[in-house]
């Protein structure tokens, strides 16, 4: 999750800066950000950024910058590919690309941490409630509020002032204060 957001940050920053700025709007292709990596394609949007994804297997630049070893290997690549060792083939792949498809699909165990921190939060809140509830004195009128007589009288007052009159409560005889026969 965090990784996905991070990969989008350059684009987000550019858009936000554009919206907040009072200067002229200009197009920034982020070319200097790619260093001396070889530019090999159009990529996602024409910008010189690396991107791994099923919808776009071939990004605009190679993943690793050119150095002496990679140049030598690229020279050897021009010959017969049967002469390449397995290790060289993998190096060539990793020179161009960061992750393989299965690595993109690999499960991210981040949800375990998220679930754990959530449960810790719930536990802390529950503990605080239990602690508070155990040391708080009872309300002085609690017993009176919960008494049967108090509650019956409360309902009787509601009936008397017609609280239920507009709610199809037809079984009550308001004149004689008792149930209809």
């Amino acid at each position, binding site marked *: 999750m*965090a990784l996905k957001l*991070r990969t989008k940050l350059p684009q987000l920053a550019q858009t936000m800066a554009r919206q907040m700025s009072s200067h002229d709007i200009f197009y920034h292709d982020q070319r200097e950000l790619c260093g001396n990596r070889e530019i090999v394609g159009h990529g996602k949007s024409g910008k010189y950024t690396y991107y791994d994804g099923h919808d776009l297997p071939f990004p605009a630049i190679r993943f690793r910058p050119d150095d002496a070893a990679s140049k030598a290997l*690229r020279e050897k690549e021009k010959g017969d590919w049967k002469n390449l060792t397995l290790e060289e083939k993998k190096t060539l792949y990793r020179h161009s690309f960061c992750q*393989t*498809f299965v690595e993109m699909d*690999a499960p991210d165990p981040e949800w375990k941490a998220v679930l754990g921190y959530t449960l810790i939060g719930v536990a802390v809140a529950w503990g605080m409630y239990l602690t508070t509830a155990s040391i708080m004195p009872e309300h002085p009128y609690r017993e009176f509020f919960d008494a049967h007589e108090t509650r019956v009288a409360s309902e009787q007052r509601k009936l008397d002032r017609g609280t239920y009159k507009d709610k199809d409560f037809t079984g009550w005889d308001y004149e004689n204060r008792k149930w209809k026969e």
Partner: protein
Amino acid sequence: MLRSVAMRVHGAVRSGVLQTAVRSPAAIQQRLSHGKPELSEEEFDQKYVDFFSRPNIDGWEIRTAMNDLARMDLIPEPKIIVAALKACRRLNDYAVAVRFLESVKDKCGTKANEIYPWIIQEIRPTLDELGISTPEELGYDKPELAIQDVEDMH
């Protein structure tokens, strides 16, 4: 018990008697979306084979075509794959060839166990001729490297 027997008899009557009486005249293959298809399947395949077989194709074009294929709702035919691999050979880009095979396997989706081995079997002569290892031979059918979390980098 009686209920299940009744259901079976009912099913037998339906399948045996009714279907012969009300059988549809013939199976008609029909494309239900509106408008004509821009290209038939053969024309589509031929278009991409021709594209990848162009002698002056460059890395930008080959990558764009492969990206397009990765986005379409289809699995490339073996002859397209063969043409693409040969184009990779002409451009001396080994990584693109392996990546394209990975992309093809990804396009097989849930049927990868059925379709992908057949595709590999079809393109095997080309793989052997050019010396291309499949992603499985390189060990890319399982995750090899883990990526470091950017939150832990600095």
